[in-house]
């Protein structure tokens, strides 16, 4: 057959290869926008100093729906004036603490509008079970936002919640989480 002479199976394999490159490498890059955090922050360092998550990420606002990001007030508890002399810290003090302006932290695990989440209901779990290795990170991970959905790359998918709820023998009823 003439086709065998003209490359045989090669174009087919080439097609597969090209698709794999597009699908595995280019597509994820195109799909997400990377946003960097406004201020450099080391969880590792702070954990060494403070030793617990709850001081800054306290859920004392239990009537609130939001997972709590530290407010400038929380930072000011220690950083009312610069402690280390690093330029990042100076910027924090100058731009946010002195001006009493909230740092626009970029939450990368914010729940979508249709999900209700209570940290209080999960307080028996270790933070790292969901927030992975945050406590050992020396910098804040950049936020990857999906161009199509607006969700972040690290937003938990429903099946992840369900898996844990099933394991823990907790209800997986829709209205436990949805709103």
């Amino acid at each position: 057959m003439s086709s065998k002479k003209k490359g045989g199976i090669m174009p087919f394999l080439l097609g597969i290869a090209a698709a794999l490159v597009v699908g595995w490498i280019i597509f994820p890059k195109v799909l997400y926008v990377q946003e960097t955090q406004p201020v450099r922050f080391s969880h590792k360092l702070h954990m060494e100093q403070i030793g617990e998550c709850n001081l800054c990420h306290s859920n004392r606002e239990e009537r609130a729906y939001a997972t709590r990001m530290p407010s400038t007030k929380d930072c000011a508890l220690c950083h009312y004036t610069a402690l280390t002399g690093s330029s990042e810290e100076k910027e924090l003090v100058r731009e946010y603490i002195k001006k009493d302006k909230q740092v626009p932290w970029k939450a990368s695990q914010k729940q979508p509008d249709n999900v209700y989440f209570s940290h209080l209901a999960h307080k028996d779990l270790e933070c790292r079970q969901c927030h992975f290795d945050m406590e050992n990170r020396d910098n804040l991970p950049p936020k990857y936002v999906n161009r199509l959905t607006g969700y972040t790359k690290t937003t938990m998918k429903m099946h992840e919640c369900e898996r844990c709820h099933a394991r823990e023998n907790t209800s997986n009823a829709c209205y436990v989480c949805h709103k």
Partner: protein
Amino acid sequence: MALDRRGFLKFVAGGVIGTGLTPLPWKLTDDISIWTQNWPWIPHIPDGEINSAPALAKLGQPEYGILVSKVKGSPILARGNPNHPLSQGGIDPLAASSVQLLHSPARIRQPMRKKNGAFQAISWEQAIQEIAPKLSGLKGQKNKVACVSGDETSSTNEILAGLLQGLGSEKFFFHPGETTLYHHIWQKIMGGRGHLGFDLPGADLVLSLGPDLLESWGNAVSQQYLFGQGTFRLLYAGPVQNNTAAMASRWIPVHSDALGHLALALAYHILKKRSPPRQNLSGFRQLHRYVRHNYTPLEAQKKTGLEEATIQSLAGELLQARRPLVLPGSLSGSCDVSGFDLYCGFCLNLLLDRLNTAGGMQCIPEPPKVVPGAPSWSKMLSGDLLAELRRIAQGSTEAPELMLFYESNPVYSLPDSKLTRKALEKIPYKVSFSQFMDETAATCDLLLPQHHFLERLDDAFTPFSSAAANYSVGLPVLEPVHSTRSTPDLLLDLSGKLELDLGAESYETLLKEKAGLLDADWGKLTSGGMWRNNTVVSQDRLELWNDRISRMLGQDRERPDKYQVHMVPQTDRRTGSPRTAIPPFGLKTLREEELEQNTFFIRLNRQTARKNGVREGSLVKIVSPEGTCRAKVNLDEGVMTDAVVVPLGFGHTYWDQFSRGKGDNALQLFGIRCESGSGMCHCSTPRVRISKIEAAR
């Protein structure tokens, strides 16, 4: 290797198969479905701490404390305040829309001046430069400046009236309503003192002669609460099975012009069975004689249209009850009640010995005055706007040069709108403080928009129908959304420019002073609490009989025979108040038999429909001596034969898309009647003609 057609096809085939092995198609399919939850053109919900702040609902009667829920300081909804005694956690549909009204498209966003018939936005400095010289030019000239206020409880009235007084004018008027009419009859005709209140919480039997007390009369929210608690037995007399009648243990169908007669017919039986009241009442003997003579069972039957047995059993119930209370008043909770009806109702209470006693009619002291230059509250309440407008229109009184409108929309909400317009046209310069572009604001020359009530500090002293003197203060719960200003503060500023001393730096100091005079705790007031005092004013010169009363009793109503059907106005808080149009959420609660597209419905029973040649759903014209409305027919057997219910609150021509052009304004069917004897002008409920509009037209 040249890529021929076959080669290309193979490449594509490989590409398709290869793509299936990557996350691309699967992730994309999933993401597209997630995208459908987050369409960028659909608003997102807020996220953050939720808390609530107490506020005071000031949308017109009733006024009471509410709670406003906020997310990150931004109000999201209004709820009832269980701790405020005037609401006990309840809320009405209008107040429940308060937060949405903040963002109504009808809000006036900044001061405006009318130029060549169109409004142009101006700054506050320009606005003050415009108004200040005008006022100072009129200073010292008698009655050149007039003012209409639609808020009967706010201390702003003292500032307004005080300013007028300082300028040399006594033309301060309250928007006519139950407060002014009750005041007129009680103080001017019967020689009473203080304001009338009604101790519904203390009563065990309530006979309502007209008032729709579970919907539009007095503080409906509080009354609904009491009704729910079952503290009193409710009897309703009136021409329509309104919400109150439907809930009442008994509905006694009586035409609206016979309600006063019913009161006296009942008085006949009470006078027969009961000893005279303890209260010293001058003219008791004359009244006694009049009633015994004119309200014999036969006469009563003729005058009320009720069976003798009905009247007798009703009187029996009143006599048997330990703490009965009779409520006379308007069917729509506004000014459609005659002095005669009010007088008869008051008399019945007096004959039952229900004055200043638990569950009875209470005489509440006047609020303390904090603006020294202002007239007394009694004086302020005694202005008769309807009479004044009539005189201006007829030319018997000179029109003022300038008129201020505060929380009042007379162009829309007064009867005989032709007359109102005619009178207002004679006033060369008009200023509105309205928050919303209402019908009156649209006719004004200068708009000085006031804060929405959730954005401002304001107070309420003893809203109409309260059982005892009370005082509430509402703090602003958010920063103003638009470039508006608090009217009382603006007026205090202006008075400074006019070199008038109103005795206060700011509205806040004024209210604090008032609280001080009342011995009320400011902290408690501003955190959603209420001050209350049960002191009543004793009466020493009450008159049941005098010249004016005898003239009032003697007169007969004119009855044009061209018109056959009694018109019954009805108010529903879902369609707003005299000050506020249909709120955004209210519109959607109007059923299909209340508003269809842009046509509203009137209600009448089958027999009336047959007599007038109309059917369910017919498009009809309602013609009264004053005007015409277009409506559809809703058959309702809860309406008396020969009566038609016309709902109020429709037919706005300004406001926003939620109220503009929805139905017709039934107030244009009503006339102004000035009663001989009492001398009081009120909204008359004339008879009307109903005729089918031919489909061909």
